[in-house]
């Protein structure tokens, strides 16, 4: 039985097409449709309910050491008010999940993980805590919305004093910010590749915050956006999705996340396995279709007659108006600019190997 987020009734009232996703009932799109929602985020702004994401709080004098043991990135020296992206690995160097971590106080860190991995992550993290660390699952009591797009700045500025809005990417305003009577944690983060914020509040205030933002956004063309646009936006921006670009048996180095894997840390779960593996066997690449057709996930990538890998995600990117995909291929098998074929339902579609950040804001 799927759960409802605190905003479920709003989605239904707005005409959202509700689908089950990661254990929740969420809108895949509203009557505006995926393309309009996607382009609103690129050119104006959009509002997403991302309350399905799971929030885990780590507190205590051992919190930093525990997280540095569990995740691949290094939180040492990260100031309160900063956010960091990371992966976390199993002992074999495969990815358990990716996550972002907020340092919310001297000895307190908030980790946000994928809804689909909520139980698995909570169990993995709890099992690997070092002493003097308390982990609390805040997911049920937290609502989260993402305000994304170049106009997000004006929308937020119409609700809070300018100095309370986080300025730099991957920062947040320490403490809580009062948004029209709702206490929020506001960060300059997102999963779209466009400028934007993510706002967290108490579950019972979710509806109030959602309605405040929708109302404030009206004059800036803000529309509610569903999971469909969330996926096309992240793909167009080359952002990896767990279960696609990363899995239990894909290493973060293969997934192109080496910038978030600090091999110079004394130790973290999976480090030894990554060292033992040496040069990654596979590599994440971008593909842009040249031939007619839309490349989807789990399709074979061929160089001549030889299969070099499989696509991990693929769709029609609405802003670029092009079929783009990401693939995991044998390391060294292709260079940027090479042409490969992707087998799309039995038919070869020619594609060019590109960077996977197809869209850059």
């Amino acid at each position, binding site marked *: 039985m799927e759960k409802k987020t605190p905003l479920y009734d709003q989605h239904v009232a707005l005409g959202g097409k509700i689908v089950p996703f990661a254990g929740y009932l969420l809108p895949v799109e509203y009557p505006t*449709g995926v*393309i309009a929602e996607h382009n609103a985020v690129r050119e104006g702004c959009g509002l997403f309910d991302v309350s399905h994401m799971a929030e885990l709080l780590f507190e205590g004098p051992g919190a930093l050491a525990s997280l540095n043991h569990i995740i691949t990135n290094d939180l040492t020296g990260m100031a309160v008010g900063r956010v960091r992206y990371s992966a976390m690995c199993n002992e074999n160097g495969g990815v358990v999940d990716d996550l972002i971590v907020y340092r919310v106080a001297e000895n307190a860190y908030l980790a946000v993980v994928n809804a689909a991995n909520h139980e698995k992550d909570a169990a993995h993290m709890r099992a690997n805590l070092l002493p003097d660390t308390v982990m609390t699952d805040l997911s049920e009591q937290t609502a989260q919305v993402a305000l994304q797009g170049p106009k997000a700045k004006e929308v937020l500025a119409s609700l809070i004093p300018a100095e309370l809005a986080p300025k730099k990417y991957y920062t947040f305003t320490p403490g809580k910010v009062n948004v029209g009577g709702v206490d929020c944690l506001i960060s300059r983060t997102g999963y779209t590749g466009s400028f934007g914020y993510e706002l967290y509040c108490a579950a019972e205030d979710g509806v109030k915050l959602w309605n405040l933002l929708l109302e404030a956004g009206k004059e800036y063309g803000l529309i509610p956006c569903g999971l*469909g646009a969330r996926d096309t936006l992240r793909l167009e921006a080359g952002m990896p999705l767990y279960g696609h670009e990363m899995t239990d048996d894909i290493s973060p180095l293969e997934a192109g996340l080496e910038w978030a894997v600090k091999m110079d840390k004394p130790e973290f779960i999976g480090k030894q396995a990554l060292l033992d593996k040496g040069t990654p066997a596979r590599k994440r690449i971008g593909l842009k279709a040249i031939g007619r*057709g*839309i490349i989807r996930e789990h399709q074979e990538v061929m160089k001549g007659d030889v299969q070099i890998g499989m696509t991990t995600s693929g769709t029609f990117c*609405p802003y670029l108006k092009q079929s783009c995909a990401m693939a995991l291929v044998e390391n060294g098998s292709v260079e940027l600019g090479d042409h490969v074929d992707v087998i799309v*339902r039995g038919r070869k579609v020619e594609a060019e190997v590109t960077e996977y950040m197809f869209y850059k804001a």
Partner: protein
Amino acid sequence: MNTPANLKYSKSHEWVKMTGENTAEIGLTDFAQDSMGDIVFVELPEVGDAVTAGESFGNLESVKAVSDVFSPVTGVVTEINEELLDNPALINESCYDAWMIRVGEITETENLLTGDEYDASCQEEA
């Protein structure tokens, strides 16, 4: 849901407009275009290809998914709507104008539904 009474329908969500004794236009219904969402890619057969009642003659892709389209008749493709290849969104905008193929030499037709019957069949599916 818009289901014009002058057309016939297949359970697999195609509409058929008989344009002569053994010629027809085939397109996608309003119910189907709405449930697919934004259509971004259309694959059609070529003129001269044979189509068979109940079998796929092409496919449509929305942002999220691929769907086959099935021919409600057996015959030969006499024309394809090339405009759709460049502008698949025409199916979302006006699905009963956006015919996909014209078929001639029709020898067999599926048991087609009237508009009311089709609406009822969609109700069951939904």
